[in-house]
């Protein structure tokens, strides 16, 4: 039976989350959220916030209770995400908590679960993701990084690219080729590799903003114990596909709604072209309203998907719909924010924000005169170009939908 209202218990839970955030979300962590330049939070502050959440038992709410999850209902997860966004909390890195861990929980050995899961929560193990290669991006199954079996070890050779936070991670979850014989998807294995193994080398990739978050990782005769395989040897594609559904099916809307509300408030403080306040410009108000509408549509879709998952389904094709619509919304939000910000300031000062990694090419050192909302606008606008490319480009998502939802 259709029922979309919240229960008394859910409203009480919302109060509990609000009380917790009020007491524990420090100004320092909140600043990381306000001044972030991309989807990645400043690493140190992200880990600090993860620690605070872990202490409360809320760092990995979506995991099974036995491994530290919260056993929340769909609505509770949504309330938590929404309240965090409203309070200005920054996102914490998803790579271990929301990507590798679901794979471990579903396909890992007991020993792997016992070792990794508590350490992912505590931050002692920090994963990065080794999927893409220089010649295998959207066409991921063509990947070539080789893992040759020698007794109880694999000997790995090859390279991974676009590896966010490889420079700070101590583990990487990789897709490697263990079998050349079969069709491309069949000979791939999901392998966990320690970053301090001899033969692992990390080289920075500086992004178009001048930030260093991504890396290329080179593997030269790196020896990895066979017990680090997750799932079956040669069957890593199954694990990877499972993990990707979780990566794509994130909660987009609470963050985007809050971003739109900030733009609305910001636009009430600056002059328009023909009106005293930008928010009163009909064209601007219409663009903003359209994005609110887009966010509303996604919010309801997200809730509907979550409610289907909680009754036992997997995100499936819905995660591709979310990825396409969510990233297109995010890009449009950054475009509108920049439109407003450009009326106040033309400063481009990544070093004055709190980016997800160091700035390699700062140009100015003078004190910053731009208010925060305008200061982060160009950075987010630049970084958001990645959204329609990463996690399987939006064209790949459309191919998935054509196949999975339409039978083409």
């Amino acid at each position, binding site marked *: 039976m259709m029922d979309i209202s919240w229960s008394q218990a859910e409203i009480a839970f919302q109060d509990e989350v609000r009380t917790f955030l009020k007491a524990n979300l420090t100004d320092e962590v909140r600043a990381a959220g306000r001044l972030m330049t991309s989807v990645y939070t400043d690493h140190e502050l992200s880990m600090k916030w993860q620690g605070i959440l872990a202490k409360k038992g809320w760092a990995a709410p979506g995991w099974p209770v036995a491994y530290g999850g919260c056993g929340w209902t769909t609505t509770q997860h949504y309330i938590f995400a929404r309240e965090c966004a409203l309070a200005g909390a920054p996102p914490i890195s998803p790579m271990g908590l929301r990507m590798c861990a679901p794979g471990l929980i579903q396909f890992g050995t007991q020993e792997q679960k016992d070792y990794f899961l508590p350490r992912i929560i505590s931050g002692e193990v920090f994963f990065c993701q080794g999927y893409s290669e220089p010649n295998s991006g959207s066409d991921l199954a063509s990947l070539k990084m080789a893992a040759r079996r020698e007794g109880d070890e694999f000997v790995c050779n090859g390279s991974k690219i676009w590896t966010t936070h490889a420079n700070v991670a101590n583990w990487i979850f990789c897709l490697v080729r263990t079998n050349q014989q079969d069709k491309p998807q069949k000979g791939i294995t999901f392998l966990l590799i320690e970053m301090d193994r001899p033969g692992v080398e990390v080289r920075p990739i500086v992004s178009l903003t001048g930030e260093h978050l991504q890396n290329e990782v080179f593997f030269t005769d790196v020896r990895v114990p066979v017990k680090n395989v997750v799932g079956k040897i040669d069957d890593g594609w199954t694990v990877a596909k499972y993990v990707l559904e979780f990566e794509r099916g994130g909660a987009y809307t609470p963050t985007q709604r809050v971003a739109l*509300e900030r733009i609305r408030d910001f636009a009430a403080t600056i002059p328009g072209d023909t009106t005293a306040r930008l928010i009163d410009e009909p064209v601007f108000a219409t663009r903003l309203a359209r994005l*609110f509408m887009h966010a509303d549509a996604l919010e309801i879709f997200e809730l509907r998907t979550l409610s289907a998952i909680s009754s036992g389904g997997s995100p499936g094709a819905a995660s591709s719909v979310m990825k396409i619509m969510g990233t297109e919304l995010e890009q449009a939000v950054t475009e509108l924010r920049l439109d407003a910000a450009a009326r106040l300031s033309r400063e481009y000062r990544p070093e004055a924000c709190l980016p997800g990694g160091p700035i390699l090419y700062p140009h100015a050192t003078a004190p910053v005169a731009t208010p925060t909302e305008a200061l982060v606008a160009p950075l987010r606008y630049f970084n958001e170009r990645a959204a329609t490319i990463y996690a399987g480009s939006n064209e790949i998502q459309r191919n998935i939908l054509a196949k999975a939802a339409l039978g083409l």
Partner: protein
Amino acid sequence: MNFDFSDEQKQLRDQVRRFLGEHCTTKHVRAVLEGKHKYDRNVWRGLADLGLLGIAIPEEYGGTGAGHLELCVVAEELGRALAPIPYSSTIYLAAELLLRVGTEAQKKQFLPKIAAGEVIGTVALVESMGDPTPASIRTIVQAGRITGHKTLVPEGEIADFAIIVGRENSLNDEAGIGLYLVDLKSDGVHIKPVETVDPTRNHAEVTFTNVPVEALGNIGEGWMYLNAALDRAAVLVAFEQIGGADRALEIGRDYALDRMAFGRQIGSFQAIKHILADMYVATTLARSNAYYGAWAFSTNAAELGEAAANVRISATQAYQLCSKNSIHVHGGMGFTWEYDCHLFYRRSNLLALSLGSLTMWENRLIDAMCKTHAAA
């Protein structure tokens, strides 16, 4: 939280789909399109017999009293089948207004006959092109008699009665606006057909000269009643739009699997896949909005205004996208009278304007958002 129809509601959907699959094929729709009848009486009769005209009318007024979620289920199926019947004007608008603002006597007079399929109703609002505003209403009521001119009256040629938006003064504001019940068979009513992009739904110009009327609800509150009715109707029409969009997508997908070019199914080309995937995304999102709207409608939630505008806009856009791209995917065949693509294209364009334009609804959304945020 639950975002789905119940098992009973899904059974109802199957029942309606089976009935329409037999009695309301595109062959039946084309009979109306090509001018053989003004609407499909057989389908109308059948829906009455199945209790589907009175599905949201309480039992005491001759309906089955199932509810508004059930009405949404029926609406989606009618949209899928392009049903050429006066359902939306009679049920979504006239019956709903009678239920909300009618006196006991008015309800007893009309609702049982509506549920039984004995009378067809409509709402006569539009007087000039452009979106209706209080100032656009120039139809005047004096001493219980109405004089004025209405155009684009849905089902104007076949309706038995109309609810007219009129006014009791010659001002431009909402204050004098009321709703009035009129028997369209009365002397002084002159009806002239209007051919629109979708002749499967009848429209007419109606001129009233000194015709006796009865007020529906309070004078001065007519504009408010009308707007609330438009919000509710927007949710129901959105279900029709989604039903149509889904079907247009399906026939496009089927054609892409069937048609060969360069030795392959055209559906194997990414350029075609992506067009169809975008149609799927638009319909999927509109459907989510529609479920939200259905919930707000059926529970009378405060969110109804915003939800209705959202679903109106997304369902209109989704249907227009799907019907237009379905033509494109069909290539040259999509451009023929023989193929059904244009039936969906016609209906999508009719429904896009039937409750006011997208611009009007975007303005309503901006207003609704400002209200929500002022309250927050």
